């Protein structure tokens, strides 16, 4: 296990593109469009363009008619803007992780480089655990850093924008918005997501180490086929369990719980209402996190995920080359 830092570095070297460049490029593209939006808004204020540009709040509103009673609303809007950057990066992260995990224990069997890795004194469990850690914590932390960097760039751009209109950015942007609280909560969500994603991480690594070929088909088609069989043969009917139970608690968890924040399924809808009412900072409050951590679904999934990771280690030891 003392090789873990080196193994994690190895994962990073191999997957720089997904872990580092994907969030960076997403940020750059997103910021570019924000800049374009601001340029349009400037143009608009010179009377040549009639449209609305939103960055959580309409840009027009920021520089024209705002009075102190609207500060809350502006803060809400900017926080939502910051959170939406986060959301985009999280979507990218999902795809990166899904394909990373599917290939993690398969690609080196296909290109035979497993023969090199296995010629070194590294245990199979350390290898698999390094991949789990990278998917559960490493990549999400990179994504978090990218999000914060992009958020700061965005706030600076926005400050410059209102500054150019002769408004003090500290009263209208840095005062009402709560970026620090937002970032802290984005960071706090990382381990919760990781725990929630364990069944998906376990399942994808298991198929990755098990499949002789086409791990994607194994990973996706198998749970779907099983669900269809359950529906056709009405397996669950006899226990009076609705078929949706399978999709939500088995297929959904092993395939989609990598979607960051997808534990929102556990909620009865109060979270969505909280978001609409209070904005993203309030939505992600500490009590909510505690409630999610206390749910049995979280922990049953985590145990199942752990078992599948153990299975992945077993097949890592057993399986030889892929086709």
């Amino acid at each position, binding site marked *: 296990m003392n090789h873990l830092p080196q193994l994690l570095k190895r994962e990073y070297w191999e997957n720089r593109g997904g872990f580092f460049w994907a969030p960076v490029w997403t940020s750059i593209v997103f910021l570019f469009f924000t800049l374009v939006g601001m340029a349009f808004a400037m143009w608009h204020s010179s009377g040549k363009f009639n449209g609305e540009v939103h960055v959580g709040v309409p840009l027009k509103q920021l520089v024209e008619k705002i009075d102190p009673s609207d500060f809350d609303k502006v803060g809400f809007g900017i926080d939502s803007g910051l959170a939406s950057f986060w959301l985009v990066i999280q979507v990218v992260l999902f795809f990166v992780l899904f394909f990373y995990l599917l290939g993690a224990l398969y690609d080196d069997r296909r290109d035979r480089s497993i023969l090199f890795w296995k*010629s070194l004194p590294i245990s199979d469990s350390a290898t698999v655990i390094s991949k789990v850690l990278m998917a559960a914590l490493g990549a999400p932390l990179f994504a978090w850093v990218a999000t914060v960097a992009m958020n700061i760039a965005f706030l600076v751009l926005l400050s410059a924008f209102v500054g150019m209109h002769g408004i003090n950015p500290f009263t209208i942007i840095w005062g009402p918005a709560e970026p620090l609280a937002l970032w802290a909560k984005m960071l706090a969500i990382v381990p919760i997501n990781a725990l929630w994603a364990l069944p998906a991480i376990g399942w994808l690594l298991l198929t990755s180490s098990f499949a002789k070929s086409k791990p994607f088909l194994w990973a996706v088609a198998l749970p779907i086929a099983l669900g269809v069989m359950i529906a056709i043969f009405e397996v669950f009917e006899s226990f009076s369990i609705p078929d949706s139970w399978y999709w939500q608690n088995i297929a959904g968890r092993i395939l989609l719980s990598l979607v960051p924040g997808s534990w929102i399924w556990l909620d009865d809808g109060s979270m969505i209402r909280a978001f609409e009412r209070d904005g993203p900072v309030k939505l992600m409050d500490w009590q909510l996190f505690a409630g999610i951590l206390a749910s049995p679904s979280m922990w049953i999934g985590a145990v199942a995920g752990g078992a599948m990771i153990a299975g992945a280690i077993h097949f890592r030891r057993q399986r030889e080359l892929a086709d």
Partner: protein
Amino acid sequence: MSAVIEARRLSKRYNGTTALKEISFEIPAGRIVGLIGPNGAGKTTAMKAILGLTDFEGELKVLGLDPRKDRHALMQDVCFIADVAVLPRWIRVSEVMEFVEGVHPRFSRQKCEAFLARTKIKRSSRVKELSKGMVVQLHLALVMSIDAKLLVLDEPTLGLDILFRKEFYQNLLNDYFDHEKTILVTTHQVEEIEHILTDLIFIKDGKIALSATMDEVAERFTEVMVVPERREQALALKPLYERQVFGKSIYLFDGARRNELASIGELHKPSVADIFVATMKNGNGAAA
């Protein structure tokens, strides 16, 4: 010194077909052993069993450890180059050195840098940007910088041109091998390694067809070139194998008396390749 590899009744079956049939052998320290056999004879299976890469039946101890259970402890003292070009294509030369240095307690970065300095390999190149020959040079540099007790080479020079192949074995012999180390090598190109081997194991249909030191081989096997008139005489001495060259017959004998053979024709020292062909074509194989 105790044996580096000890196999007793080692067997391996793959869905119905038997790759290894209860083979037993022992390899002492400080030897360079050629494991030679046709495709599908079980060479690679035996190698994989030794390296803990496959399951097997029977008993096998490598440096006193069970390769199935203690693979990662074993790899502290065992290195292997399995086939050419198994280095991951995405990795950079500097990264692979850093990685091996990080995980292998017996790796010397200094040695590796010195070996690489003799080549044209750039530190910043990715493996996929290197030629096949350079990839093998890199792999060899990495492996030779590890102070291991056993080095296993499975067709290490397959697909390389002759210059690289010569250089490969030259480096191995001059800069790596000593009496503490043991090298086990499989190859098709017997003639290339013949002069560096100390021991020979022929493997045929999952069984050992011959296991002997090179000295014993030189002692046991003799070739006689016989003119057609003496053919009957030669056959009476039960040669292992016969081949025709320019109208003369060449007979290979195992364990026959030299002076007896000298009376029927001209004696030669057979090459390992000739002994190999004779052993493989012969129904029963030479006595092990």
